């Protein structure tokens, strides 16, 4: 005990030694700064390589053109007076964001297999800032999905809501949704630690998340048990928010405010868990 106190005092002579206890404002400012530095890193990577963004367009296009057009003609799914392709557009956006975000953990494992994760963890970056920065960068990346889906929707004649506030709302939902599911993916990566196991689990999780949601059919159509599952599935709230923001006259099931609140609370919880698990990925 005495040794430590003495040591801490002696450490003070070096200018590189910071005060052990920073003030609250300083640590919050530091946290924000580090978070942006991590997000900047990921965005810079994207600037060097655009191909990833282009390949991401394929899946939403297939869903729109193949699934969407057939189901629109079939009129098999009651969507309350809205054309099925209009109903589907927000679902496809949410789905394409989910499918990209859910495999985010692969990158985490890749960085761990190299020494990159070690290097970040040895730096004086708060663990929460590392995880949040990565989540934000996944959010920024997923904005391209919104662009792709809007372009496709425009080509197919979906009636979209172009009010600026609604558009901003869509971007916000997409960023939060991507942050949420990419952090979920990070948590799985920290638990399974190998690429093979991760791929297996990723595949197993994606489909239930997708089908137990209102992405391609309304909640009213679901049997009771499935509705119960979809009520705890964050994707449902993401789709609900997107649908009321993207389509002019769609009545939200929960209210956009509730949707946002659920998404943000879920993201904060996951980031807190992620920040605790992330350092263990290198052990």
């Amino acid at each position, binding site marked *: 005990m005495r040794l430590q106190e003495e040591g801490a005092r002696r450490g003070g002579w*070096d200018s590189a030694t910071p005060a052990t206890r920073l003030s609250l404002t300083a640590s919050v400012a530091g946290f924000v700064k580090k978070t942006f530095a991590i997000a900047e890193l990921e965005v810079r990577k994207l600037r060097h390589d655009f191909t990833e963004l282009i390949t991401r367009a394929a899946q939403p296009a297939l869903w729109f053109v193949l699934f969407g057009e057939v189901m629109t003609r079939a009129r098999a799914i009651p969507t309350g007076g809205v054309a099925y392709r209009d109903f589907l557009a927000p679902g496809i956006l949410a789905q394409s964001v989910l499918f990209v975000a859910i495999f985010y953990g692969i990158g985490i494992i890749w960085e761990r297999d190299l020494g990159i994760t070690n290097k970040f963890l040895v*730096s004086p970056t708060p663990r929460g800032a590392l995880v949040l920065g990565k989540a934000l960068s996944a959010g920024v990346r997923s904005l391209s999905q919104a662009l792709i889906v809007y372009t496709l929707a425009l080509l197919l004649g979906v009636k979209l809501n172009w009010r600026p506030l609604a558009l901003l709302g869509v971007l916000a939902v997409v960023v939060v949704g991507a942050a949420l599911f990419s952090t979920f993916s990070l948590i799985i990566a920290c638990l399974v630690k190998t690429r093979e196991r991760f791929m297996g689990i990723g595949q197993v999780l994606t489909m239930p998340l997708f089908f137990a949601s209102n992405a391609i059919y309304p909640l009213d159509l679901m049997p009771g048990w499935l509705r119960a599952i979809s009520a705890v599935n964050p994707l449902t709230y993401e789709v609900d928010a997107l649908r009321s923001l993207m389509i002019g006259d769609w009545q939200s099931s929960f209210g956009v405010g509730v949707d946002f609140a659920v998404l943000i609370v879920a993201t904060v919880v996951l980031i807190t868990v992620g920040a605790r698990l992330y350092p263990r990925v290198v*052990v």
Partner: protein
Amino acid sequence: MNVLETTALTRRFGKLTAVDALTVAVGPGEAFGLLGPNGAGKTTAIKMLTTLLPPTSGKAFIAGLDVNRHAPAVRRLIGYVPQMVSVDGSLTGYENLLIFAKLYDIPARERGPRLSEALKMVGLTEAADKLVRQYSGGMIRRLEIAQSTLHRPRLLFLDEPTVGLDPLARQAVWNHIERLRADYGTTILLTTHDMEEADQLCDRIAIMHLGKVVVADTPARLKASVGKPGATLGEVFIHYAGDSLESGSSYRETSRGRRTARRLG
């Protein structure tokens, strides 16, 4: 004051004691080598000293700060070059340094000069704007050293710094390590399997075996200690850790090590 001091630092994984009561002291400006066969506990020791892994028991102090209790402060005092590649291939050399300058709170107005100086020191000024993916193994290692020393750490950890490098690239890395010591008085703790490297760089060497330090001394005294005139450091190593041919690393470690060598080579 010692820059690094440990007292009976121990880490167990289940029944295996990876590091067994490690007690070492490294003074300011010293270059200390941690040698030992695969699985001797070197990497586990480094992980504990760099705040990545909490010890099961025992203590470690860096510049007088308890590593376990003051991890955030300790992180500002140390630099770490992991064995595996630790720079990002899809960024340029400059960007790799820039992000770390931000993570280490180097003020914006100092960043420019600090980064140019770092690039110049490791001879990467010309290649600064190339993607690291296009770098050679030697360039990657030099960039990693620059990245880990941007914040002028008191203590630099180098985990097998020249594994997989050709003799020329290896010599260049050695030169940079010597420069760091001469210019900034950086204290160095390095692990290596390269006896020539240990002999050339280290003031003192500890040989670890099955989690314990078997012997620690200057290279000259170690060579004299084995009772054979003109003994090499390699012979010293075999003398102290020689019965471990079968105890070494696992399949996973081996494939990792080879992968590093391939990536850098």
